[in-house]
């Protein structure tokens, strides 16, 4: 099982990204299973939010919060702290949206990419960066998930931003 932990602030779309990943993973394969859920509770704009995606080739029975993630994706660098390493598997990676370099983690200026596509949030850019780094789903399936689960008028920009982010990793 692959487990992805998403950290963001209320309104940044971390949970939407968690859902899109789950949808993309299962979209064309009946033998793949995913769970996606937010940290449960009241939602407040700006407050720290956690979201979880679990991917497996058998039904995911464990519905509890991830204790050791394969990837931690952080949409807002003020939420990064070295203590997060405790939630990461030894082989795991942390991906952070930041204009600055942070030791030991992969940083990208996701805001800059989002701005190119007039997107106010970085969630689909971070999803693209995750795909570029991990290959957990294909870009095609991610684009299909965006088509299936985002409002039509913002689909194209989000797909383009995601593809651009995948390329950014390849650079």
């Amino acid at each position, binding site marked *: 099982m692959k487990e992805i932990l998403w950290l963001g602030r209320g309104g940044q779309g971390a949970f939407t990204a968690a859902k899109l990943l789950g*949808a993309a993973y*299962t979209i064309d394969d009946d033998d793949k299973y995913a*769970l996606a859920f937010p940290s449960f509770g009241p939602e407040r704009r700006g407050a720290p939010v956690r979201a979880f995606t679990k991917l497996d080739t058998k039904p995911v*029975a464990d*519905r*509890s919060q991830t204790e050791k993630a394969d990837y931690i994706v952080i949409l807002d660098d003020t939420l990064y702290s070295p203590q997060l390493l405790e939630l990461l598997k030894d082989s795991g990676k942390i991906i952070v949206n930041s204009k600055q370099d942070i030791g030991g983690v992969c940083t990208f200026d996701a805001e800059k990419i989002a701005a190119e596509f007039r997107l106010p949030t970085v969630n689909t850019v971070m999803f693209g960066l995750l795909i570029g780094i991990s290959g957990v789903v294909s870009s095609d399936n991610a684009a299909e998930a965006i088509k299936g689960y985002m409002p039509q008028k913002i689909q194209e920009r989000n797909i383009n931003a995601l593809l651009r982010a995948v390329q950014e990793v390849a650079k």
Partner: protein
Amino acid sequence: MSKKFLSGNEAFAEGIRLARPQVISAYPITPQTIVVERLSEMVEDGSLNAEYVHVESEHSAMSCAIGASAVGARAFTATSSQGLLYMAECLYYASGGRFPIVMMNADRSTALPWNIYGDQRDSLSQLDSGWIQAYAENAQEALDLALMSYRIAEDKRVSTPYMANLDGFVLTHTYETVDIPDREQADRFLPPYETDNRIDLDAPKNMAFSAGPDTNYIFKYKEHEGVLAAREVITETEKAFAEIFGRKYTGLLENYRTEDADYIIVTLGSIAGLCRETADKLRENGVKAGVVRIRYMRPFPNAEIADVLRNAKAYAVLEKDISFGNEGTVFTNVNSALKKAGADVKGYNFIGGLGGRNISASDIEKIYNDIANGTESVNFIGIGGESNGK
């Protein structure tokens, strides 16, 4: 059939859309809100032709559903926690009036201390209200229960309202892949509601009346018969469901690796998956572990529970409930089933998940270990036996 990535609430709403209720009464409460929001959107976009009534309380939500059912309409409502408790008075009117209303309950803790997270103290407190009670494990089962519920509740042998329970957040707010049946298949499975138990100007009759000491008990006996009849109707309905949709369900309970099991956890709802995974792990180490998931608390699977536990060395009932001053209510019910069947197996009660507290794989492993070695009768996960506080 189409595949979608949906939460438990959304999956249930999809099932209800396919069941074509004619009246939906709604009052929002976390974590149920999404199901009535989605249904409201479906009514708005025309994909569900129902009268959607915004009511001022849960008491009114159930009263409205009763009124709708009393004119022969298929009625739906949903609630949770304090909302369920507030409408409790009306639950008995619905069951006593034999109105086959379907309600989704998002299982959530009850106050005080105030808490919006999942446990099963709300619905289990209403076991005596005369409603059928089902507990889903995942979003697919939630959707399928929504569709099966009306067929079971409306069967003339049953004529009993049906409460489908989904664990708050862990099921209601968790997204997973769900198969959504075709409209044509759903219509073939579930015909429109037809009943004589309705207000009819051409055939006036007395409904929702009083009955004194001479006759009251007869009505109560008939009500009991109705819920018991659901046993057979659930089996028939699941058979018809499997024929049309290809998904099989196993009646009042679901057994996992119990045939030769020495140690069995009996539980209900979404925690069952982690119990099965833990049982698999223990079996790799030579411990014969099994799991029973209760799917229906009413009608209760008395004979089935006794059969499956009879040859075990010990069993645990793991539940998100406590009847203060006694034990968990599911434990009481399970013990009674064994006693009636003359089975003598040592049983222990584990109370966990109250107020949404996480139950981990290691907690479950410890339960198997504890019942193998013997422990106190009633245990609180994370605290210990009852005598701990003394």
